């Protein structure tokens, strides 16, 4: 099937910059020099920014985002900010190790890369490429293919830094790792962050990623994260998206899973002007299991798109997808999910569900849960609903003296709980519970207890 590709013409600007910044890009990530970037950029020139004519972006209009003017910065500009403030994103009652990425650059006052006592490496992607070239080369760009998508190609061509995490065989991170991605600038900014997460066999990590904006400018972040989970590795990834409503966040996560590995992701989208989350999971080993969960609470003119692909390439793998959303005001949501069961991937069990509540007639939801199945001994199902709060349940609560407002909140909270309940780390779960309940009450403009002044 040929894909019709309509190209939005921001390419000329980017092309000029790509040539101008040649020297900087050549040295940005050792081992991934200008020549390799050129290949990715050629793909970008061919594919462009996908328009809504591209099937996967049918409900995700990217044009308006890319038509704005953005500043792009090619060197890390350590803006002076109160470093103490950074540590206020801590999760209460949960010991976490906190790491920062500011405007796509890894930031730490003392070092670029740390090696923990058990051999775990974490820090800057560019630095990791320099110090551990073999490890880096083995995984970098292996899971996110720039030829497949304009956004991936764009990121691959321009990416200079991001977060790097490596867990050697048989290691367990005893603390949850909290990664805070921050956007702070005095002007509109476009960034291309690139993360690489490698879990060797039998390793285990809990990762919490928080997305914040520290000023009210238009931000456009186009990030790509590649995850490798070795045999029997365990990774849990929770993403909290809480950005200002003029920001646009395009985040693609590519997950490669080996036999018996277990990866679960929970994405909680609270604030943000335009959010596009993509999860591409390749189950490449028998017995691998993947959970992809998402929750989005949107209002005003927010747009949220969630796109998934769970690729069952081998037999005996299982997967679960649950996406739930509440849309208020003029919010626009979309879900494009796909389960692909390849030939001979027998005994696959794959489930997918997307449930939505529309609170106003101006809110809009488009959902497209797809199945593509080429093997016969499988159990696959999907379901999607779009509706409103159950009037019987509302009546029941009201007849017991609960106000209309409280009853609605209660039901909405119950509706969202399925996704929250799937977060395995207790402290984190409680934290998310609190944020969601505040968000539903409309009290959440920033994280609780946080004095960072994210907006």
């Amino acid at each position, binding site marked *: *099937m*040929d894909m*019709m590709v309509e190209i939005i013409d921001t390419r000329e600007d980017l092309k000029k910059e790509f040539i101008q910044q040649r020297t900087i890009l050549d040295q940005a990530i050792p081992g991934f020099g200008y020549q390799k970037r050129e290949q990715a950029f050629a793909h970008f020139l061919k594919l462009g920014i996908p328009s809504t004519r591209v*099937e996967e972006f049918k409900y995700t209009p990217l044009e308006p985002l890319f038509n704005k003017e953005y500043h792009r910065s090619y060197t890390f500009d350590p803006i002076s900010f109160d470093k103490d403030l950074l540590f206020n994103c801590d999760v209460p009652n949960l010991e976490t190790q906190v790491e920062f990425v500011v405007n796509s650059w890894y930031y730490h006052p003392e070092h670029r890369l740390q090696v923990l006592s058990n051999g775990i490496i974490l820090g800057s992607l560019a630095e990791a490429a320099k110090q551990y070239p073999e490890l880096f080369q083995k995984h970098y760009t292996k899971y996110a293919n720039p030829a497949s998508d304009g956004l991936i190609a764009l990121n691959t061509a321009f990416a200079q830094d991001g977060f790097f995490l490596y867990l050697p065989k048989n290691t367990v991170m005893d603390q949850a790792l909290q990664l805070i991605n921050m956007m702070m600038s005095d002007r509109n900014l476009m960034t291309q962050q690139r993360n690489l997460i490698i879990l060797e066999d039998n390793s285990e990590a809990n990762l919490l990623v928080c997305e914040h904006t520290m000023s009210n400018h238009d931000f456009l972040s186009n990030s790509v994260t590649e995850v490798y989970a070795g045999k029997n590795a365990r990774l849990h990834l929770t993403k909290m998206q809480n950005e200002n409503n003029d920001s646009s966040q395009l985040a693609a996560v590519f997950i490669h899973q080996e036999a018996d590995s277990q990866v679960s992701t929970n994405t909680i989208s609270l604030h943000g002007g335009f959010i596009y989350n993509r999860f591409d999971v390749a189950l490449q080993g028998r017995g691998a299991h993947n959970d992809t969960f998402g929750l989005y609470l949107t209002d005003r003119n927010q747009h949220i798109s969630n796109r998934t692909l769970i690729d069952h390439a081998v037999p005996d793998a299982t997967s679960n997808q649950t996406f739930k959303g509440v849309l208020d005001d003029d919010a626009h949501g979309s879900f494009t999910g796909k389960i692909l069961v390849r*030939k*001979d991937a*027998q005994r696959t069990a794959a489930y997918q569900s997307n449930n*939505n509540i*529309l*609170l*106003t*007639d101006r*809110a*809009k*939801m*488009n*959902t*497209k*849960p*797809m*199945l*593509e*199945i*080429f*093997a*016969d*001994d*499988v*159990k*696959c*199902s*999907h*379901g*999607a*609903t*779009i*509706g*409103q709060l159950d009037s019987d349940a509302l009546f029941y609560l009201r007849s017991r003296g609960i106000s209309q407002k409280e009853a609605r909140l209660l039901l909405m909270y119950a509706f969202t709980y399925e996704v929250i309940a799937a977060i395995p780390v207790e402290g984190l779960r409680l934290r998310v519970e609190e944020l969601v309940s505040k968000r539903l009450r409309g009290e959440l403009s920033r994280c609780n207890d946080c004095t960072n002044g994210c907006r």
Partner: protein
Amino acid sequence: MEKDQDIILNEVTQSEYKYGFVTDIESDSIPKGLNEEVIRLISEKKNEPEWMLEFRLKAFAHWKTMKNPNWAMLKIPEIDYQDIVYYSAPKQKKQLNSLDEVDPELLDTFNKLGIPLEEQKLLTGVAVDAVMDSVSVKTTFKKNLADLGIIFCSFSEAVQEYPDLVKKYMGTVVPYRDNYFAALNSAVFSDGSFVYIPKGVRCPMELSTYFRINAANTGQFERTLIVADDDSYVSYLEGCTAPMRDENQLHAAIVEIIALENAEVKYSTVQNWYPGDKDGKGGIYNFVTKRGLCKGRNSKISWTQVETGSAITWKYPSCILKGDDSIAEFYSVAVTNNHQQADTGTKMIHLGKNTKSTIVSKGISAGKSNNSYRGLVRVAKNASNARNFSQCDSLLLGDQCGAHTFPYLEVDNSSAIVEHEATTSKIGEDQIFYCNQRGISTEDAIGLIVNGYAKEVINQLPMEFAVEAQKLLQISLEGSVG
């Protein structure tokens, strides 16, 4: 066990297409090719009025600006539109008064198909408008229907005799700009059926047409228009079988249904065209645009289809629920075997208030076939209290085939309740074992299970059709254990 199953599977999949034969009737054909001249020639041969020719030419001009759609999950070989004969009519005498005057060879064709006109006439009370290579041959029960004011005739006759009705409704549901194949059909359509049910009339019998593709290299471009006026009811049957051919044949039909206030139209199809041989050679390309408009308040349109034939099926019988309180239904069983490809489903567009739609789609894939459900449910901003339920199940028989589901749900109204659910599975070994244990052979067990699986849809068919459909399922699938 495995071996037995393979043998059974082979037996079944290699069985000859039952309805493959060519009737040797002298055809009145025009040369191959598609251009303005050909369209003028078709129009002239059919003695059409000027406005009809204009419509065709407009459609053709628009078609030339369009491209073959490639979004479906189908591999469609390049079609040379210049290599097709666009008009072929069995030669016949002017007007026939009795069956005796019908070409006996033609009558024999229908007999082979098991639908002798006389018997139908006497026993079943079904009026048959038999369409053979594009020209209506014989219409029965016309008089009975005429007494009630019902018009049931060929499309060309309607153009001559009821130009006002045709002008008023043709192209209002499927405009010629709608899609590539609709534009093509609008330009070159040869004939089809026209039904008009007047106000307050309940059509006393099932109306039915049999489409049959005959003369070699003739694409069939049918056009059907059904108008049900206020408070009327009609049930319409369409059944298809086609002779065996090695060359692919193109079928691009249009069906338009309009239901006015309180009217109900039920449209049932059993499609069993030649699917190609077991290596995927030959077979019909079935690219059909079917759409109903629930125009009036409280109107209802129901599509039921059993699709077992055709090499490639591209078909989405749809409903536009414009009138308040209108209801639309879509029931489908699609079976693919060998190298067949099907991309079929429906669109339910909710525009009016308190509208309801139901979608039940059952896909069965066997052999090396691919079977996709593709459906859209759209609830517009002002369509308050819309309700939709969709269920799309797929059954896989064998590990070489594919079953896919592409549902699109677009909701702009908070009072809507839209639900979609789908499952994909195979026939359980435990189910087969249970039947075997009770002395039911494996192939009978599969027939039983498949028929049970499809029952929800088959039950929607009128009696005669239900029997035929059940037989078809059995023939297509019994023994295909995965």
